[in-house]
């Protein structure tokens, strides 16, 4: 049997004899199982609830009686954000974004009833998910298992004995790496099995899952390398332990919290009040719908009359009020989109700053890789919001067009007692309106978004390996 395997086997035997280590590992596996089970049940529950609500909302919309189309514009519709298939592994921002959104004319509403607004202060302690276990808990457990790997031998003088028996430095460090690496993979196994179990979910595709498995494996191996590296560099195992815990606390706990503070200070977001006021201001500049003499709307009216070759709106073959509604919605929606993009871009810049800080903390990089591949990051959420807005726009414009084509101008402007009845169009139209269907990003897109994070984690892995190679060469030298 070769020396590396021998040393690895010895190290593993020592760990197995350490009762605390065994108990801790068993606890970690149990914790992973609890996390997988609870996260899965939680996501299932949310998905069912949202589906039920979505169904109820669609049925309510289709079941509306004969109405004036503009009433339906205000009746609007609710959409519920569907969960990505891998959200049970890493729910990402799902907890922090609203679950339901009310879509109506003239207004862009926020997504409401997010979990974070409905939870106690405990929500800010983090969430028990398989991703959290692998990101935060597993490295710390590896530290407890491996800090002494080389430092112990140095401290007790057994390193010299090993070397005198003919083991080379590389073989010794290689053996320790092999042992700890094996443990790391064993610890990650339950979470990975849990992830693969999700593969049966509709919409789960292989590519992002492969990226997740690859990324987390790289992450744990990075810790294995870092632990053995520190253990090689210091002479006392306690120093190795304290140094590693400090590194872990800075990387996994501290920097991920500091990064957003810096990013938010660098790129401020415009709040909703200021956005709404600004949109109202721009609308006034574009034209005042309340003013019949307004030049913008006068121009619009002239162009419509010219297009149909008539001189009065009453002579138009279509309902002018409907055309006006279409035009008004077009103008407001353009503004919504402009301000929306501005806000999304600002948030994207904040995320990019946090991502840059990820260069010095691979934990941030791993988190973003994991969320991106799971389809639960900001980019995926933005995709949902943009699709929701596109759907809102098309629905409202269909209804406005229905007003133009289905209600006569004379009826629409009439104020007699029977006018309300004549303004209504048949309820059949509501069912003909298409329902919102969310188009989830493809597996390739998700995997592509995860690449920057993956590159950083792999870069760290390479750097740690290089440093360890250097440190190994000097192992056992008197300092």
């Amino acid at each position, binding site marked *: 049997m070769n020396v590396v395997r021998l040393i690895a086997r010895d190290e593993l035997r020592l760990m197995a004899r350490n009762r605390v280590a065994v108990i801790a590992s068993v606890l970690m596996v149990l914790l992973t199982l*609890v996390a997988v089970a609870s996260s899965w049940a939680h996501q299932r529950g949310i998905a069912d609830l949202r589906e039920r609500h979505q169904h109820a909302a669609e049925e309510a919309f289709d079941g509306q009686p004969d109405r004036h189309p503009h009433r339906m514009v205000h009746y609007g519709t609710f959409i519920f954000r569907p969960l990505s298939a891998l959200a049970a592994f890493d729910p990402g921002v799902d907890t922090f974004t609203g679950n339901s959104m009310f879509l109506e004319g003239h207004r862009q509403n926020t997504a409401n009833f997010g979990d974070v607004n409905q939870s106690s202060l405990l929500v800010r302690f983090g969430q028990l998910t398989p991703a959290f276990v692998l990101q935060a808990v597993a490295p710390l457990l590896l530290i407890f298992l491996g800090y002494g790997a080389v430092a112990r031998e140095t401290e007790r003088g057994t390193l010299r004995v090993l070397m005198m028996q003919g083991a080379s430095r590389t073989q010794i460090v290689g053996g320790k790496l092999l042992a700890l690496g094996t443990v790391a993979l064993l610890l990650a196994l339950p979470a990975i099995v849990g992830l693969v179990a999700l593969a049966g979910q509709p919409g789960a595709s292989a590519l992002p899952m492969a990226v997740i498995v690859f990324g987390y494996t790289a992450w744990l191996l990075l810790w294995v390398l870092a632990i053995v590296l520190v253990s090689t560099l210091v002479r006392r195992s306690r120093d190795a332990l304290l140094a590693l815990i400090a590194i872990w606390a800075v990387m996994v706990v501290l920097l*991920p919290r500091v990064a957003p503070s810096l990013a938010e200070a660098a790129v401020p977001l415009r709040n909703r009040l200021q956005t709404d006021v600004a949109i109202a201001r721009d609308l006034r500049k574009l034209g005042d719908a309340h003013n019949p003499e307004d030049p913008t709307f006068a121009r619009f009216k002239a162009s419509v009359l010219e297009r149909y070759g008539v001189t009065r709106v009453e002579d138009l073959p279509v309902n002018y009020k409907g055309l006006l509604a279409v035009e008004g919605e077009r103008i407001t929606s353009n503004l919504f989109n402009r301000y929306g993009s501005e806000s999304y871009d600002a948030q994207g810049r904040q995320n990019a700053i946090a991502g840059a800080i990820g260069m010095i903390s691979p934990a941030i990089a791993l988190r973003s890789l994991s969320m991106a591949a799971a389809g639960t990051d900001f980019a995926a959420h933005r995709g949902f919001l943009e699709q929701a807005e596109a759907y809102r726009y098309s629905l409202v414009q269909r209804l406005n067009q229905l007003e133009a084509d289905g209600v006569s101008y004379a009826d629409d402007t009439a*104020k007699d007692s029977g006018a309300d009845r004549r303004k209504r169009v048949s309820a059949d139209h509501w069912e003909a309106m298409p329902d919102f269907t969310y188009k989830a990003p493809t597996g390739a897109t998700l995997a592509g978004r995860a690449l920057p994070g993956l590159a950083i984690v792999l870069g760290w892995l390479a750097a740690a390996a290089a440093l360890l190679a250097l440190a190994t060469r000097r192992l056992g030298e008197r300092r």
Partner: protein
Amino acid sequence: MTLWMHELRLLMRQRLAATALALLAALTIAALVAGMAEVARQRAAIAAIPAAQNEDIGAIAAWVDKEKDAGSAAYYSFHPTWDAPSPLAFAALGMRDVSPYILRVRALGLEAQIYDGDTFNPEMALPGRFDFAFVLVFLAPLFVIALCHDLNSSEREAGRWRTLAALPNGGAALWRRRVLLRLALLWSVICMPFAVAAALSGAGFAAILTILLLVAGYLLFWVVLCALVERLGWSSTANAATTAALWLMLVLILPTLGHVAINRAIAIDQGAEIALAQRETVNRAWDIPREDTMKAFYARHPQWADSSPLTSAFHYKWYFAFHQVGDESVAGKVRVYRQGLEARDRAAHGLGWLLPSVGVQSVLTGMARTDLSAQLAYRDRIRDYHRQLREFYYGYMFRDRPFGKADFKRAPMFDAKT
């Protein structure tokens, strides 16, 4: 006294201890600065409300003044409400980053407005805030562990323990001195910057004192935990590993398990149901006789019942009446929803008695008025204000009084204090 000075000199000669204390002081100060900067941003956003609001209302007033219809004024005017940060908010930002602290409402149905959020970046909110509460709850225990895990074991490992125990003022007295010294140093590097920041932010003396005691109590808990582990007589390394593992359980794992358990035990599904049901009632008003709506409205609000009857023409008082009837139709659901939220909050605070990490966080966010109950209290103030807005506009609509430019200034203002 000289013994204490000697201990201090000994401690400062350890590179680990000196670095740890300096690092903790730096982190505390950074967290305080970050917290104060965030609170300053929020105050600036609140201070910017009147200018934006005046511009917005001014434009509406200009054209409403032509027809003087109170209904149009009420329909188009958004009124700002805000939840100013408390003097201690900088220490524990709590939920203030994810729940709105500025919300504009109209006199229309409130249930369709009150759950709206403000713009925030979910990816930035996800890891949690870097504030004083975080440094205290999450990081401070690690520093206690670094400084206190080997008070006896290191002396035993160095072979000095028996000698020290035999000295006058040695043994237990020496250990007490060392523990107290470390506790006092850790406490002061956390509390001195905090006290300065709190005084600058205008926090009350009693509140500052309470938090200083809270910090002492929390640090003491971790010191006692280290001492208990040390009594097992293991090596310094085993002590460090054990206390760090306890930290992992108490600060990271058990609170997240508690979160899962609480949200499981107390299900809250009513949020979306409120929104869906309110919309149904509001929109159904267009399909039932208008008199039915008015009858239902007057039954609950007899003070307006003597208003002139509706004609065939559109009147805003009917519009606002069916919005209010819509709100009232979901009052039961709203109550259940709120009770659910309160139950979750209570359960979390209850867990604080078992888990010191949760306890400290809950006391801090409670004192800083940044927790769920502060959010609910803000919602109550919005409800009160919304009631005033309705009464104000109804006074014009139901009495058919004209609503001119000057009347916009008579609208009730949100009172942030009450």
